């Protein structure tokens, strides 16, 4: 479906937030790259900078041969083709599951889409949820829908910010299996933020330590 195997992600950013300095420099290859470090180390800020939701003070962000940010470039989030799965799902509360899933899909140019609604629904096993409202979903269900919504927008890479944080042990296993299939079957590069050793050991192709 998608050939992201040769896509490299090059990140070199700095950002001052209050009296803290957030800095990261690494190159991520295919597979799942875990940004691993204690809470409050600025891992989410790094994802936000990659997504275009937070502007770095300096540096550059490149994905494959596309420059998302440097001294001369600052693509808005909607032009970056980045899927973002937030810690809290962040589904649109006034739209049913189906409309949440198709929100980005319908905005993406046809050439950028690499998954249909039916494929995403089958891949994630969420067929029975399509007519539901987000507030009626369990944590695991909401996270599946959030993943589907991000995939359907046709991203080049996927950002995941502690997607298991609000789930119980059983759901964690489910969602980890989904993430492994995104990594291995869809071959979509993933930047994955976590402070959990076990999670990182199971999922990561490579690890970037973020911390003091």
């Amino acid at each position, binding site marked *: 479906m998608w050939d992201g195997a040769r896509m490299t992600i090059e990140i070199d950013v700095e950002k001052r937030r209050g009296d803290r300095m957030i800095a990261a420099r690494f190159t991520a290859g295919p597979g799942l790259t875990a940004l691993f470090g204690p809470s409050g180390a600025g891992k989410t800020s790094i994802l936000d900078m990659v*997504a*275009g*939701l937070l502007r770095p003070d300096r540096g550059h962000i490149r994905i494959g041969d596309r420059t998302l940010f440097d001294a001369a470039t600052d693509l*808005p*989030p*909607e032009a*970056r083709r*980045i*899927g*973002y799965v*937030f810690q809290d799902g*962040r*589904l*649109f*509360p*006034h739209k049913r599951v189906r409309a949440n899933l198709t*929100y*980005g899909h319908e*905005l*993406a140019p046809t050439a950028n889409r690499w998954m249909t609604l039916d494929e995403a629904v089958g891949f994630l096993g969420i067929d029975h949820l399509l007519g539901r*409202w*987000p*507030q*009626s979903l369990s944590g695991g269900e909401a996270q599946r829908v959030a993943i589907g*919504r*991000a995939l359907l*927008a046709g991203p080049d890479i996927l950002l995941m910010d502690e997607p298991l944080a609000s789930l119980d042990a059983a759901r964690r296993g489910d969602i980890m299996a989904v993430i492994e299939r995104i990594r291995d079957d869809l071959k979509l590069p993933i930047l994955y933020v976590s402070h959990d050793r076990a999670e990182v050991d199971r999922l990561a192709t490579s690890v970037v330590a973020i911390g003091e």
Partner: protein
Amino acid sequence: MLSAEEWGIVALSLKVGGLAVLATLPLAFVIAWALARYRFPGRMLVDALVHLPLVLPPVVTGWLLLIAFGPLGPIGGWLERWFGVTLMFRWTGAALAAAIMALPLMVRAMRLSIEGIDRRLEGAARTLGAGRWHAFRTISLPLALPGILAALVLGFARSIGEFGATITFVSNIPGETRTLPLAIYSALQVPGGEAMVTRLALLSVALSLGALLASEWLVRRSHVGRRAHDD
């Protein structure tokens, strides 16, 4: 049940209230949005000016309108010269007075609902390919809708009840500016007007109560959606 004259009063009141809230809505929304989302120089002043009609004696608001929008006033004179529009002693002037009195209520209702929107949802929409305007139209605006509707209802009820600023600015002219409260006031001055007063007063109570219940219902609905999202 109501006489033709009384139906005319009701119709005029609805016309004045309707024009007042519909004309005020876009301005009130822009002010509410700016106050909820941005820090800008003069923000406190804008906030205070918007709320002024709420605490000022209405007769003073009416007098200020008379000065500004009278034929010799800076705005009134200009409107008259360039557009041949007069507001003083006209029903449109009554709508203006009602609009100014309704503005603070409308801004407050909308501001609360805008402040309640999780801004991170807009960020999520942007990463899904939505530009600023599209994210506003498809995410923020629908989520603010209950507040906007509540503002319309509250503003409308306030407009229909406006008395002091109206009678000061546009006087009490039957068929032109005599809305429900002014008609009740007039009927009170007339011997034997008690029956009319009773009917119009009951009508006012019904309209106001209906508006309050409607806005309460709308606000509650918006809270349900939001709380469920926070879970």
